[in-house]
């Protein structure tokens, strides 16, 4: 009996660790090895790495990420304060809306800024920075705001009775308390901006390229596979360095403040806080609303006046694609559904393995790697790794869901692992003592309690898969494009019709994304009854 139990456990362990490991080995490590082989195989690519052109790209990549991060913090912090510490009507709605930009596809946001800005400002540093801020304010609000809203207020009360004025309390307590969250949010934002691809390839114009865009150009335009591989290595090293620096920064950020179990009740605004709140909310509505509104307006602004012309054009074949544009919606939905299924399976297995094994730190890092390794690198890796028999998968239909799942799975783990960890072990013990078998405990305790995070993860995975661009653009065939790829193909071509069609496709993609996230959220938000 005991032996049998042991055997089942081993089998479970193999499934939990083995399946994700095998998947990562084949579809992540192997493409990386292929890149290494291409980049370093003949000789170390010193020439590529010291080329002034490369240095220029590296410099731009770094400084735009730094400036984007700084601007995001400046723009995000007032909104963090408003959503975390102030009680006002519609606060829940504002909080939900603020995260919408984060799930929007990069291609959509870039197109939105094209629609918003006057022609002279459409390509260059300004639209890039604006788009990066647009995306990452959500990160700052979520990471810092989530932390701020749960800080135990008794520390601030005590400080007040000890004679600390409000501004003094902010300096002596609030800032030190928020430092770890600020460090985490800055690191994430920096990472996202550093590996930004869709935004820059669309808004950068011919003069501005990050490492990602340069890799893409080298691989797909000038076919310099060795240089592309060399830059991929550089990118991988840089990302690893960013992750290492940020985790050591977070570790050194000082003592963690005591957190309340539940969110602490926010205060109604008083005095100067009222006009400040109104100004912050109005600015946020403008900042988030204007580009998206401009995009929608653009999609209806046909040369013949306001109308559905661009949407009707989605049904007709064009030179930009080999199929009618609306077929991209169909391909996107199919790919994203498959990708979500794969990402949820992998992510759940990995999350359970992570939570069960105390020694699973290395696993944590391994699972998170695809998050750091950029999408473009992944797509490029697939192209050079899976081009020869028996691993000639380049034309396989399933290769796109696989690569999208790789990009989405780390987010699934990031959501599920903490949720699993947060389940009070005494609940499982109580269930076991009441006669529930281990499998029953899972079904009765774990599954209901992670259902909601699972729904959130599914929605996010679906949104990421729908919007995935950096890797998909390498792999999507022109007769089976996804929405972002189709949008990109239209944007690449001059003319108001192509731009308008891109805008219409963007509106469709945006609607599908928001709908999918909303439905996933709805389906799993019901409480479990008895």
């Amino acid at each position, binding site marked *: 009996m005991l032996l049998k139990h042991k055997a089942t456990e081993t089998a479970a362990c193999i499934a939990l660790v083995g399946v994700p490991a095998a998947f990562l080995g084949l579809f992540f490590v192997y493409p990386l090895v292929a890149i290494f082989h291409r980049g370093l195989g003949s000789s170390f690519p010193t020439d590529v790495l010291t080329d002034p052109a490369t240095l220029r790209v590296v410099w731009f990549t770094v400084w735009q990420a730094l400036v984007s991060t700084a601007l995001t913090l400046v723009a995000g912090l007032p909104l963090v304060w408003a959503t975390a510490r102030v009680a006002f009507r519609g606060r829940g709605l504002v909080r939900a809306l603020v995260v919408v930009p984060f799930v929007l596809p990069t291609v959509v946001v870039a197109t939105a800024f094209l629609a918003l800005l006057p022609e002279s400002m459409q390509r260059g540093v300004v639209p890039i920075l604006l788009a990066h801020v647009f995306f990452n304010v959500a990160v700052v609000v979520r990471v810092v705001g989530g932390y701020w809203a749960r800080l135990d207020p008794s520390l601030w*009360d*005590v*400080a007040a009775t*000890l004679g*600390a004025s409000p501004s003094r309390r902010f300096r002596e307590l609030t800032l030190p308390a928020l430092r770890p969250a600020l460090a985490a949010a800055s690191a994430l934002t920096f990472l996202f901006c550093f590996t930004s691809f869709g935004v820059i390839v669309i808004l950068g114009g011919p003069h501005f390229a990050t490492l990602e865009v340069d890799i893409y150009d080298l691989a797909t335009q000038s076919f310099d596979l060795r240089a592309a591989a060399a830059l991929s290595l550089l990118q991988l090293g840089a990302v690893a360095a960013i992750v290492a620096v940020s985790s050591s920064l977070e570790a050194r950020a000082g003592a963690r403040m005591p957190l309340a179990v539940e969110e602490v009740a926010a205060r109604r605004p008083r005095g100067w806080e009222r006009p400040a709140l109104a100004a912050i909310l109005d600015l946020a509505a403008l900042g988030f609303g204007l580009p998206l509104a401009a995009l929608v307006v653009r999609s209806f602004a046909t040369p013949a006046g306001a109308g559905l012309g661009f949407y009707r054009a989605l049904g007709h074949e064009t030179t930009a694609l080999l199929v009618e544009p609306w077929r991209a919606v169909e391909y996107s939905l199919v790919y994203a559904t498959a990708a979500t299924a794969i990402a949820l399976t992998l992510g759940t297995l990995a999350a359970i393995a992570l939570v069960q094994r105390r020694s699973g730190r290395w696993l944590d890092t391994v699972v998170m790697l695809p998050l750091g390794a950029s999408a473009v690198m992944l797509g490029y890796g697939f192209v050079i790794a899976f081009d020869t028999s028996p691993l000639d998968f380049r034309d396989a239909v399933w290769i796109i869901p696989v690569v999208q799942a790789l990009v989405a799975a780390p987010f699934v783990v990031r959501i599920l692992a903490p949720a699993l960890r947060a389940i009070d072990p005494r609940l499982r013990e109580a269930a076991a003592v009441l006669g529930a078998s281990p499998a029953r405990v899972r079904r009765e305790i774990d599954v209901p309690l992670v259902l909601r995070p699972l729904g959130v993860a599914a929605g996010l995975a679906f949104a990421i898969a729908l919007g995935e661009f950096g890797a998909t653009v390498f792999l999507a065939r022109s007769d089976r494009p996804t929405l972002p790829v189709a949008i990109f193909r239209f944007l690449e071509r001059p003319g108001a019709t192509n731009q308008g069609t891109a805008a219409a496709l963007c509106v469709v993609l945006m609607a599908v994304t928001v709908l999918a996230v909303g439905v996933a959220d709805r389906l799993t938000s019901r409480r479990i009854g008895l």
Partner: protein
Amino acid sequence: MLQLEDIRVSFDTTTALDGVSLIADTGRTLTVLGPSGCGKTTLLRVVAGLQPADSGRIRLAGNDLAATPAHRRGVGLMFQDNALFPHRDVASNIGFGLRMNGQTRAEIARRVRELLDLVGLPGAERRAVQTLSGGEQQRVALARALAPEPRVLLLDEPLGSLDGPLRERLLADLRGLFAALRLTVVYVTHDADEAFALGHTVAVMRGGKVVQRAAPDDLWRRPADGWVARFLGMRNVRDQGDRSRVIPPEAVSVEPGDGAVVTGSERRGSVVWLRVMLDDGSEFYAVTTATHNPGPGDRVAVRIDEAAAFDVPKWAG
């Protein structure tokens, strides 16, 4: 002297304080006793200036505090979960209020040393607060609250998270300190023993109202109503209509003999509670300090001092 007059506070749908008037005498300890949710914590927060009152007045030494924000009130506050600043060491926690007052480093260091001696933690200046035990943390929190020499010290269940013997020791230490420093103290608790042990005066709260304010002995002798009697730990309380008849446990004595049977006995430290049932079916509790006591099933004689019994309303106010 701290005076509260007709303080009212309500949150969205609930009334936390429903016209509370109280006086805390200078140099004395007022304990506020009540079950959780009775508004006692809100009361402290109003005094500290952390919660604005909807109406009513707070006066400290005759001055209205309404317009004074929390950080200028000069009151000390101590919580159950100590709320020490985790990013500062012991000395920096204790010195926080002094620094806010703009005192010099040397003055702060001297005063911190003085306070650490006072609370029995000499030399702990440079320790990280996380390395302290629960009792030590409470001592540091107390030292921090005392450092700026507050005009009133407010404590919100400061011993709530500590275990038995440690709690007893700190309780004794607190009482000694309050007396030695002649502090004006408002001490909130849900524990009647703690309220009796510390308070010169005990105010009993229920549903946002003060139902009784009295010296501990007077409170024990004449609880305002049946609910208060039960909350103080009296067990022989019988409701008859809208009145309650209270027989203090010390008015019931158990002797060898007949007429009743022991139905239960529980030792609580140095005293034993005996539950007895008279042959007419009525039940009483008696308290005794004897070390040899009859057990369940034993026949005993029960004598009740009817003169010590009294009638109160079942529900006052």
